């Protein structure tokens, strides 16, 4: 695609086309070791410190399946309402790319461990059923650092530096069937699905499900169908969209882009696309080609996986309560309205509020901070609410400071600023920024006296019994004390002094 492509505004595109989506989610499991070898899987280790003959594909090495990864895959399959295969195999996906030293990726082909599932996601009070085609086991690839001649490191050189720490980490790929929902809902449904799967899998404890660290990665496949037609269009595959918000934006952008091409009588190319966080656009990656002939065949080095029905049923018993049941229970426990609940889920704050309430904060206070303050900040900065740098622990601590009368709501916002800026714990920020409210009568009394002196009219009204006039004096004191006065105590002092 060239830079001259025409984009059709999203709403206008929907008057002529219906979007058809497919979503693929890759989830890195949090097992202690890799899928087929005993190398550790910790995130952020020094390059090539987590490799062995198996994951480096040295001659003679024999891979052996990690039992815990299979268990996690089955539990995920069950949570996604899938059938669990009675017998399935791994397959080699052959391709030449230096991110896999074997020249193939061990994956599953036509025998996934889990298949035919669904999840129900809520958007604007409507429930949409997303059908899951399959969830299969595979392994992650290494990380390449591309070094081009243009960087000037080596004149004219073009090469890659590869770190194989990630190669072989267990990965589950979840593939939906095609999703056809009303076009205006498509971006939100795509986002809600990814968010729902994140919560669901996070609840199983089998993955960190961190989009920002790549332990959950989403691919958005999209095509357009002219209204009234049943012929599917050519799809684009936007890879590694790494936040919920980006999933939504990627869908919107691709709808606009496809519509532009189709309106001009052009043909959409089947290709991978890269999503750009900064602009919300996608750019051409790689066209489908002969190289995508992966020549899958059953992996001869690994024995088939045949989970007994007893094992599957045992694992089913370990599943947490289904999301819909959990939501209903939490809503009742918290006394939230339907609208509160919808906002909570829409903001991706269900787990955050749950954790905050578990730490002793009231549901109302947790709601105030997460849906008021944090959702607003997330919107403004364009990041997901759980990537703001604020944890339930910190929210609970800040609310405790308010409950103890040491800060007020207004000062709490400054404490959040400080914590997000990395200035330390809420307690440390309060001390360092001197945010504690002043409630000692000496300091407050002096400020009250000055306020009375500066506004004799208001003072006279209060003496005449018009207590509402106290507001002006309280305001003056708060201003002088830069918001750090205990407003309740200030009011009491004013009334005492003027009656």
């Amino acid at each position: 695609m060239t830079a001259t492509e025409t984009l059709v505004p999203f709403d206008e595109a929907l008057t002529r086309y219906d979007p058809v989506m497919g979503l693929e989610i890759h989830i890195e499991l949090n097992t202690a070791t890799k899928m087929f070898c005993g190398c550790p899987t910790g995130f952020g280790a020094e390059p090539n410190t987590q490799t062995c003959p198996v994951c480096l594909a040295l001659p003679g090495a024999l891979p052996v399946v990690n039992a815990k990864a299979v268990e996690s895959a089955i539990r995920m399959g069950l949570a996604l309402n899938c059938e669990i295969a009675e017998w399935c195999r791994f397959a080699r996906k052959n391709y030449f790319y230096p991110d896999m030293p074997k020249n193939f990726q061990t994956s599953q082909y036509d025998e996934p461990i889990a298949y035919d599932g669904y999840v129900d996601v809520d958007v604007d009070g409507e429930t949409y059923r997303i059908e899951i085609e399959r969830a299969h086991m595979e392994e992650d690839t290494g990380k390449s650092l591309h070094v081009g001649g243009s960087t000037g490191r080596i004149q004219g050189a073009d090469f890659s530096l590869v770190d194989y720490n990630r190669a072989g980490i267990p990965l589950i790929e979840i593939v939906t069937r095609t999703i056809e929902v009303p076009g205006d809902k498509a971006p939100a449904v795509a986002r809600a699905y990814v968010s729902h799967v994140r919560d669901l899998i996070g609840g199983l404890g089998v993955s960190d499900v961190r989009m920002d660290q790549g332990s959950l990665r989403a691919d958005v496949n999209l095509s357009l169908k002219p209204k009234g037609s049943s012929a599917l269009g050519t799809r684009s595959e936007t890879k590694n969209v790494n936040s919920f918000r980006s999933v939504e934006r990627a869908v919107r952008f691709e709808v606009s882009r496809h519509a532009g091409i189709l309106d001009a009588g052009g043909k959409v190319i089947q290709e991978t696309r890269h999503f750009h966080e900064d602009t919300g656009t996608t750019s051409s990656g790689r066209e489908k080609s002969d190289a995508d002939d992966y020549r899958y065949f059953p992996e001869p080095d690994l024995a088939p996986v045949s989970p007994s029905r007893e094992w599957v049923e045992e694992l089913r018993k370990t599943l947490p309560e289904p999301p819909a049941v959990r939501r209903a229970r939490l809503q009742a426990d918290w006394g939230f309205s339907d609208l509160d609940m919808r906002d909570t889920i829409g903001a991706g704050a269900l787990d955050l509020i749950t954790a905050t309430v578990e730490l002793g904060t009231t549901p109302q206070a947790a709601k105030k901070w997460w849906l008021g303050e944090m959702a607003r900040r997330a919107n403004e900065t364009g990041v997901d609410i759980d990537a703001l740098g604020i944890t339930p622990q910190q929210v609970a601590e800040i609310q405790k400071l308010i409950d103890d009368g040491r800060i007020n709501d207004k000062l709490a916002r400054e404490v959040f600023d400080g914590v997000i800026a990395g200035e330390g714990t809420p307690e440390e920020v309060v001390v360092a920024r001197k945010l504690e409210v002043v409630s000692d009568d000496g300091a407050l009394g002096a400020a009250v006296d000055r306020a009375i002196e500066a506004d004799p009219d208001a003072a006279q009204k209060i003496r005449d019994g018009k207590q509402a006039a106290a507001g002006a004096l309280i305001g003056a004191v708060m201003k002088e004390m830069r918001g750090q006065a205990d407003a309740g105590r200030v009011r009491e002092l004013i009334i005492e002094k003027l009656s």
Partner: protein
Amino acid sequence: MSEPAKGISRTDVAHLAGLARIDLSDAELDHLASELPAILENVAIVQRAAGDDVEAMSHPLPVNNVFREDVEVPCLTPEEALAMAPASEQQRFLVPKILGEE
């Protein structure tokens, strides 16, 4: 998982060579285009020997569920891992840019 082709054309050989990233000369292509069908024919004889009731074998032993516990074992040191690489830099394997990739 696909049925082996009865015949194999020169184009097929060129395609396979491309997938395997093997650079073949015209003479080599001609040679293999005549050689490979003979090999496939031998395989086909074995295939005919097995009836429809015999499942294709993917593993030499009739075993399932060979698992290991999720327990760490010592890794190679980066020096050991990289000692086998023709070139390395920044504690990473240095590989040439792959033809046809972006």
